[in-house]
Structures are given as C-alpha cells and as structure tokens.
C-alpha cells in the first residue's frame, strides 16, 4: 500500500509535503516545462510586491562551497500582473498556489493580503519578513518581534485562509519569533529564509555580489536550519515548513524527524528542476521500508535517547 503523504497546514490539505521555496521557481509556471506541477504539495510564488520591482544590480548570484549566495532584490512582476497572467496559468496546471508577499510597510502587507484574499485560487499566504536584501523591509521586519507580531496580526484580520510566516534565521532565538507568529494566529511558520553571507573576489578585492552581502542557501545550510527546525518544534504547536538545503528525500526526511510537517525545495531546483518529484518517491519508499502508513507518524519522531544513538555502539 502506498503510504499516505497528505499533510495539513491550517486547513490547507497538501497531497504531499513537498513545496517550492519562494524565489527559486519563478512563479511556478516555468517549472511546468520540467514536470507536472500539480504533483507538488504546493507551489510558492516568488515574493510579490504591490508594484513591480526590477531587483538589484548584477552580479546577483555566485556559487560558494556547497552553496550559493544570491541578492535578487525581490525582482517581480507585481501582484496585479501575477493575478492577471500567472495565476490563471497555474490554475490551468492544477497547482496548489501559495502566494508569498513582501513589502516595505505594514499597510502594504495588509493591502497585498486583502487583494489576494479575493482570489479563491490563492490557497495560502506566506509572509516574507526575512529577505535580507531589501534594507527598509526584509531583515528589520523579520528580526523585530514587535513588528513581526503587528504584521501577522493585521494580515490575519484580512486573510482567513492558510497564513504562513517565513522566518529569518539571522536572529539569536528563532523560536521566540515562531511563538510570536503563533500567538498572532499564524497557521504555520517556514523555517527559514537564507543566512546572510558574503564572498570576495580576491583578485579585484571586490565583493562577488553587487549588494556586498546576500542570502546563503544550498546543502551547506541544512545542518543549521535543521537545528532551528528542532528548536522551533519544541516551542510551537503550529506546523513547521522546513526550508534550507533540501536536495534529496533523505534531507526532507531528516527535517520531518526534527519536526517539520512539510519542506520547501529551493536551490536544488536550479541544479535539477524536477528534484522534488524524485523526493516524493524517495519519501514513499522510506515510509514503506519502515512500515509507516502515514507521513505524520514521522513528524517530530526524533529519538534523543542517547543509548540508541548508533555511533555510541561503534568500536
């Protein structure tokens, strides 16, 4: 029997726990050239802003050991064009759509949420409070508990479907922020956005990104984010969506064991656009192997009993 991969985030039923990470799949429609996007639990859009944004000057990306740095600067077509051009296409593709939004002002988050709430095909909202590239928005909002609470509170009032808060990992105790989001009525938290990182071209002594620092993603950050997911899992009751270096089914499974209900695949899409599809099969095989009928049996199942840690029994 095929194991049941269905998970639920604030009433939003996902056929499996695989989502795309915002900003790594365009608006989701570009992925349709590579696989059937309706096979995913959900497609999370690029961060949408009220007005179109052209983004940062190049260079915007650079590869580093086991990861990459980016500084796209929220380049996007704006919420109106998204609703007019991209959403109908995603609906046609039977994708479950979660819209990610970003803004520089609290009232703009509210206005975006109001606009999106009138479209039934927007099944959920993910708040980007954590983009490390936009000076006035991003990091300040996501790194200040009071502001975060205020944004979640106001958005909650105008958006009744699934509301997810994407947290920044660039804080001392991420669980405090998760608790604040939960306290204001968020249905879930995404743990986490990218880490602030930097790379220098030693020959020109110039930064490798135009904005000097950028967001660090890829396999290198998985252990960091895994620890944050575990921390948050021990502090909140709402579902956690893990995002950080998910490149294989095994990575996703680690996150589930640490407490994640779903995972977002991001940078892996750049290397292999259909990576999530392989992961779905890998997760099914794992569950079958361990005779688990339901993915929910795996969530938060970490066994911290030291007697059972395999390496303690070796030579």
């Amino acid at each position, binding site marked *: 029997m095929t194991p049941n991969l269905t998970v639920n985030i604030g009433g939003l039923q996902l056929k499996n726990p695989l989502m795309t990470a915002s900003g790594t799949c365009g608006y989701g429609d570009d992925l349709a050239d590579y696989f059937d996007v309706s096979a995913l639990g959900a497609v999370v859009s690029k961060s949408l802003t009220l007005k179109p944004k052209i983004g940062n000057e*190049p260079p915007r*990306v650079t*590869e580093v050991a086991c990861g990459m740095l980016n500084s*796209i600067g929220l380049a996007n077509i704006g919420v109106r064009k998204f609703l007019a051009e991209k959403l109908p296409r995603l609906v046609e593709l039977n994708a479950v759509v979660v819209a990610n939004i970003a803004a520089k002002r609290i009232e703009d988050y509210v206005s975006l949420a109001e606009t999106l709430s009138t479209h039934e095909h927007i099944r959920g909202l993910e708040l980007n409070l954590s983009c490390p590239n936009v000076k006035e928005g991003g990091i300040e909002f996501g790194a200040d508990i009071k502001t975060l609470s205020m944004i979640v509170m106001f958005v909650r009032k105008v958006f009744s479907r699934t509301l997810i808060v994407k947290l920044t990992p660039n804080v001392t105790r991420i669980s405090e922020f998760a608790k604040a989001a939960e306290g204001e009525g968020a249905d879930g938290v995404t743990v986490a956005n990218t880490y602030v990182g930097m790379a220098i071209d030693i020959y020109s002594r110039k930064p490798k990104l135009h904005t000097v620092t950028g967001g660090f993603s890829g396999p290198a950050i998985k252990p960091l984010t895994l620890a944050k997911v575990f921390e948050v899992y021990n502090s909140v009751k709402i579902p956690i969506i893990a995002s950080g270096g998910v490149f294989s089914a095994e990575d996703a499974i680690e996150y589930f064991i640490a407490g994640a209900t779903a995972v977002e695949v991001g940078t892996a899409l750049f290397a292999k*656009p259909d990576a999530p599809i392989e992961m779905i099969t890998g997760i099914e095989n794992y569950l079958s192997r361990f005779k688990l009928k339901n993915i929910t049996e795996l969530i938060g199942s970490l066994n911290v009993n030291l007697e059972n840690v395999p390496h303690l029994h070796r030579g």
Partner: protein
Amino acid sequence: MVSFPGSFDPLLPRAFSVCDVEGERISLLYVAVGKGTTRLSKLRPGDKVVMNGPLGNGFPDMRNGEKVWLAVGGSGAAILPILIVGAKNSGSSFRIFYGARTKSQLINFDYESTFYATDDGSAGYHGTVVELLKAELSREKPDKIFACGPTPMLVSMQKEMSNKVQIYLSVETPMACGIGLCQGCPVKKKGEPDYFLACKDGPVFDSREVELVKEKSAQ
C-alpha cells in the same frame, strides 16, 4: 546547462554555448579555469553528465548573400563551428576575427577568411580583436557582426561600433539556473530601468537593446 549527476560539487549547472553538432553528438568548447570546467576536463569516455538545453535565444538566422562577420575572443571561439555551418547552409558569406592573449591560446579551426589578433603580437594583428575589427570596418562594412567573448570586448564593440553596423552580442553573466527560475542573470535594458534575463531573453542580444557594464568577472 551542464551538471554532474548525483553531485553537488559543483553545485550549480554551468552554461555553455553549443560548439558543434554532428548527428547525436554535441561538442562543447571550454577552458578549464574553475571547479566546473576542471571537473569536465577530467571526464572519461562513457562518463555521464546532465545537459539541459538548448536554452534561450541564439544568433539570428543568416540569409543568402548576407555578409556576416564573426568576432570572437578567447573561449568565445566556441561559437565558430556551429555558426560557420549555419553560414554555409544559408549561403551567407562570413569572415572571422579571432582574438586571444597569445598564439598558444588560439585554436586552429582551419577556416578560410580568418583574421587573428593577439595581445602580445605572437600571431596575426598585434592588439585586441576590437582594434582589428575597427581597422577593417574603416575599409569595409558587413551586414551584421556576431560577437562572443569576454565582457570588456563586448563592451568596447558596443561602444565603438554599434552606430556603424548591426551587432549581436552573446553576453556572459553569472547564472544559477539557466531557465528563469532564479532571476540571477540580469542584463540592463538600454534606456529603461528594467532588466532582461540572459538565460531566457538572451544570451544573444542586439547591441542596441542592452547596456553592458564593464564588470570584473567574479567567476
């Protein structure tokens, strides 16, 4: 885009132009300078790579009787074989301007009508391929120039010749996905605040459409 199956080192796929096609065989031309190309250079026959392409937009089709000059610098010479097949098939006439730092870095393709330039004067014209082109342009004018090479070469061609002749530039930028997912490869639109994406809108652009910046490549 080329990547290595089941491996995340290098993490991101690498962008190459198709150098030549023979039946089911695709050739790439590269210089082993970084992690990706060094790994490519160590592949043995039968080893597998993942290739996603062709992607984006190439040079415009050549027409019968059209005079096209191909200006290439360094590993930009990768575009020559496939373009020359195109030129011959379409019946357009071509001339090649091929620049490199020094003679040993020039690949001998053995094409007719090739004019070489080397920075150190060890082969052909002593100077850059752009200087060579400029000298030729003062005598004669093609219908189009197709260019591929390092960004400073493209920048000076754009600056010094695009008012005289139609130039198509194959640009090089850092790039993560190659398929529009990451928005990481912007190329400034001329006279507009907005950007093209090198991966989807390019990598070949009409030189009058874009504003290239002389940026020290970070790669």
